[in-house]
């Protein structure tokens, strides 16, 4: 793929503007609880972005990114609670831990490619739950563990109500996510980003042109796992409780599906994927409110299950828009 998207198109400027306005209005019109939910949704962009980096840019199919979200969450919880580190340091270290575990998984990815890598990462996603039950010191075992430390607004922050703290956490998450999007955008458009895409399209050719396959693949996987880990760390910040039952294999698959539905290989695809997931969830809630439709209502209830909608959406989009929601209306590149 030729590097043509350095400048913003008109559609993405419009999209960004609407998104910014919505993000700015949100704290004024919602309650504490829904602001926290909004923050969680915003944070989940990072996990989807992680899959996008590995699969969309690096060409390595990862069905197991929920694992790295989990590693990030458990690690951050451990650092902030058991080691009593400050939040920022704990989240940074949690991200680093997830990135290291990602590098470890990236190592076999040097030889295991394509559909076989999908297989291995799916296996990882399935093993993660029983594995994390086995280390109760870090994960709280079956029932999970609460985090005593709170990420509260500092003294200079106006107001000291619960709402003020919620707004503080919300803004912090938005800031981190925007920063992560900006950094990732710069990475994929850098020299390193070009070597990532070169490997995706043809690794032999990339190697001939002097790209170091080993370090590029491992770094790509580490970055992508780090993003997912950051998502996990921020989740702990928002809800101070970590438990293995938040990370079933289906969660990994829904993250993957969000990335594909949004569009692989564009940064906005990840945002779109999460937006789609949110819209689908809300629409499902609205539909589930109707009763008395009999079997039809029962069938409509399926729309309340994001996993079902995303599964079906994955199939439909593969046929209609192979490049995801972000690819609708964009000309297909001849190389694809």
């Amino acid at each position, binding site marked *: 793929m030729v590097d043509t998207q350095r400048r913003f198109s008109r559609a993405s400027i419009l999209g960004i503007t609407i998104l910014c306005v919505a993000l700015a209005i949100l704290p004024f019109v919602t309650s504490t609880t829904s602001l926290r939910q909004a923050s969680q949704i915003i944070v989940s962009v990072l996990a989807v972005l992680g899959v996008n980096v590995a699969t969309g840019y690096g060409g390595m199919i990862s069905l197991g990114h929920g694992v790295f979200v989990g590693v990030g969450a458990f690690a951050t919880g451990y650092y902030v609670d058991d080691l009593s580190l400050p939040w920022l340091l704990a989240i940074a270290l949690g991200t680093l831990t997830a990135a290291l575990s990602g590098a470890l998984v990236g190592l*076999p990815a040097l030889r295991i490619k394509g559909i*076989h890598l*999908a*297989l291995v990462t799916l296996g990882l996603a399935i093993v993660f739950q029983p594995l994390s039950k*086995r280390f109760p010191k870090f994960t709280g075992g079956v029932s999970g563990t609460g985090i005593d430390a709170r990420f509260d607004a500092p003294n200079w922050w106006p107001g000291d109500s619960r709402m003020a703290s919620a707004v503080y956490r919300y803004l912090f998450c938005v800031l981190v996510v925007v920063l992560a999007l900006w950094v990732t955008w710069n990475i994929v458009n850098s020299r390193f980003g070009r070597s990532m895409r070169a490997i995706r399209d043809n690794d032999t050719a990339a190697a001939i042109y002097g790209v170091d396959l080993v370090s590029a693949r491992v770094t790509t996987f580490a970055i992508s796992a780090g993003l997912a880990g950051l998502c996990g760390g921020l989740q702990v910040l928002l809800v101070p409780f970590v438990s293995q039952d938040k990370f079933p294999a289906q969660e990994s698959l829904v993250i993957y*599906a969000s990335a594909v539905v949004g569009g692989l290989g564009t940064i906005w695809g990840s945002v779109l994927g999460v937006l789609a997931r949110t819209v689908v969830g809300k629409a499902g809630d609205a539909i589930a409110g109707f009763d008395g439709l009999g079997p039809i209502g029962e*069938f409509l209830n399926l729309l309340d299950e994001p*996993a*079902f909608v995303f599964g079906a959406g994955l199939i439909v989009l593969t046929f209609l828009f192979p490049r995801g929601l972000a690819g609708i209306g964009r000309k297909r590149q001849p190389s694809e």
Partner: protein
Amino acid sequence: MDLVLLLQRVCDALFNSAIYSSLALALVIIFRSTGLLNFAQGEMATFTAYIAFVLLSGPQPRLTGGGLAGLVPGVPFSIPLAIIGAVLCGMAAGAVTERALIRPLGGASDLALVNITIGLLLATNSLMAQWWGTGPRIFPAIFPSGAGQHFSILGARLRYSTVGVWIILLSVLVLLVLLLRHTRAGLAFRAVSISPSNAELVGVRVGPTLMYGWALASGFGALAACLSANSVLLEPNMMLRVLVYAFAAATLGGLDSPKGALVGGLIIGLSQTLIPAYVPFIGFELSVLPALVAMVVILLIRPAGLYGTKRIERV
């Protein structure tokens, strides 16, 4: 080491081995002909186990409130009939999947095929949760499995159900071999497995042949699910872990070798029981970890497995 205990564990492991072998066979049949790993194989199989369940016990309301499943006209079938019905449904579903979702894609990339099968996995999984609820159901035993229903071999107990499952698996395998060796459709399938383009040139209709392949594979998957539903309890995620074992078995044996699937299933089934028994850290809960590790190691060291064909990549 207690030899009787070891023998007992081997006897217990043989049951799982049969299940893994048949699901691995399903995966291998599809991979051999299309180069596609069907991640949805386990969920499709679980779905057919639910169909068998409905056929057996009539319409089942969800654990909470009534549901769509209540619309299925259920007649209480006998167990063998219900399983045959479920296997036929599974075969039909497999054929439809190939025709509607895989064939139209043509020779699409790995990514597109992964997307389709993962989409199927997610959709089927939540469909089952919606229709039948997530609570485990008790699937009736197929073979006499009460106390004392076993053969005694040197002090170890070999349960009737284990023997029964192996008899079914082996007889179906004999049927499969006869089908592949002695019928036109079997010949066509073997030709397509070796080279779809050459098979087409000599007049084999590749599309329908692949459809039969998918039907066969899904039949094996359905059989695996129905036979194991009694011991692992029927629930939407029933086959998710089994799928890892089956994939490990298929990888170990070589992803394109039916013989490998059988041998791989045996080895993985045995190691799943024996490793947790003798390595305390692993324990029952983590027994899926050795399977994953085995899979990674084989893919790294010998991607062709025990009996698979070596892949040669052209640059």
